[in-house]
């Protein structure tokens, strides 16, 4: 096990937690796994789905951030530690923790066209979202669209901002559902603990 790997857990709530790792795990964009079957061939995701009684339903790996979604409402104490073990084991193995995404087979069943969605979401971000959040010194970067789920990263005044979740859920998510209703979800892969200049900073006890 590589003791040099440092992991910071950022629970969003009892169902979703981001694990910020001190080294990159998947430099080639974002991979999202919505089931254990999809995780096959990616040792890190396989290990996280295999956590006993973890109830893991989704794993997203982007750079040095692993986002895990689970369906049981228990606190992250047990599952979080098991995720940490899986991350350290994957980092120490020397093999790529996550396989590169492969194109769907030609002639396969009809699926959501993520590339077309990506173009539309990128345009919405460029033309509407970013000009608005720029007023608070913020920016929103589209990282990827997978299975109609949008993965984004916040920067500038949005990173670490006390109201980032309001911007995300009440602003960006609403705009996506209004303009691009095919989008099925939105995942924020921002490392908010590293935000050095948040626009709104929590200051009360």
């Amino acid at each position, binding site marked *: 096990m590589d003791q040099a790997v440092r992991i910071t857990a950022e629970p969003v709530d009892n169902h979703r937690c981001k694990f910020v790792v001190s080294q990159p795990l998947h430099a080639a964009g974002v991979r999202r796994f919505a089931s254990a079957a999809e995780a096959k061939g990616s040792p890190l995701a396989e290990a996280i789905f295999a956590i006993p009684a973890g109830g893991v339903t989704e794993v997203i790996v982007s750079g040095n951030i692993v986002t895990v979604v689970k369906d049981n409402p228990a606190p992250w104490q047990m599952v979080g530690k098991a995720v940490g073990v899986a991350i350290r084991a994957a980092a120490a193995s020397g093999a790529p923790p996550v396989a590169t995404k492969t194109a769907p087979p030609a002639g396969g069943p009809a699926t959501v066209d993520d590339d077309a969605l990506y173009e539309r979401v990128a345009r919405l971000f460029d033309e509407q979202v970013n000009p608005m959040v720029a007023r608070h010194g913020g920016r929103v970067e589209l990282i990827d669209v997978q299975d109609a789920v949008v993965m984004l990263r916040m920067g500038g005044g949005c990173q670490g901002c006390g*109201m980032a979740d*309001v911007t995300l*859920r009440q602003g960006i998510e*609403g705009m996506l559902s209004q303009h691009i209703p095919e989008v099925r979800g939105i995942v924020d892969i921002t490392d908010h603990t590293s935000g050095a200049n948040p626009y709104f900073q929590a200051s009360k*006890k």
Partner: protein
Amino acid sequence: MPRLLLLLPSTTYRTTAFVEAARRIGADLTVASERPSTLEAANPAGLLTLDFHHPERAADDAHVFARRHPIDAVVGVDDDTAVVAAAVAERLHRKANPVHAAEAARDKHRQRELLAEHGVPAPRFALHLLDEDPSEIARSVVYPCVLKPLRLSASRGVIRADDPASFVAAHARLKAILQQPDAAACGEPASQFLVEDFVPGYEVALEGLLMNRRLHVLALFDKPDPLDGPFFEESIYVTPSSAPAGLQKAIVECAERATRALGLVEGPVHAELRYNERGPWLIELAARPIGGRCSAVLRFGNGVTLEELILRHALGMPIPSLEREPVAAGVMMIPIPGAGVLQEIRGVAEAKAVPMIDDVQITAHLGERLVPFPEGSRYPGFIFARGATPAAVEAALREAHRRLTFMLA
């Protein structure tokens, strides 16, 4: 779906917890803040700006908003927005505390007047103007005493004095704090302060939910570190309390009498009490949930959060359980390590590796200037633990904290 109007100050720690709770229960959510979201024009049903400094004005604006987007419940998350929520709910004829009760909970002087009128055990107090001659006041008070601002949160500006000299020094310090722009923005309350008896004893915090005037106790926390001053920085909260059952009953009765004295009827309450050989004393009672990120330590039934309980109650939705999970739990508000600019934090992973530690959340960001009590009030982070016993949880919190190092410049 019912529509919830959630009043979130832009400086609150509680945004994510409340927003995610609203999503989980399936409410249509409108978030109102005192400063506009840059995306308000894009989602006019979901984002709103209200004047939290003027509750009546906020109620007017919310009333206009509700004509287009009917509101089923209004929830505030701190002392100020609890008052605004009461004003808005009154205008919309929704379930909430009366405005005068929410105001009394926010105003430490009015609160003490009502507690005294209703015979609730509380420290003796006197209200003074900040411009009075401190030497003169110092000659008339009983020592030890505590100087306390009327509105500031998190024990900011609360200072113990043991003699006239320390009283005058404490007064100068408090005056400087109340002249800072954020404190002065409170208006008239920033020109006054309380002097009250110091009550020796052990301190506990009670988290509760008022439902049609009845107080349901959600958790009683021990505060194992003595809070004897001269400043009153919080540190560890551990539940369940180890106080004897009879004493716990007396503590709950004291808090319930306080809610009645203030006229509170619905929603969350957070009370700070002390007990000694004369029984429990009400130190503070607020019409809001526990502050900071501390609520993350509480889970009810099958993992329901405190925020979800509060929102379900406000919306009249079924509440699965008011019973806290059957394990001991605790939180440490990480003590402010000193004055300076935060350069680096070491040992977070090591702190998280301590058995029973759930999480270590660092809320200060690198480059942030840390200000110790009593001038400051922003903890650099929180440590959470769960375990078999309160003593084990407390030990885990202390060990995790021991492994953290804050590098300041």
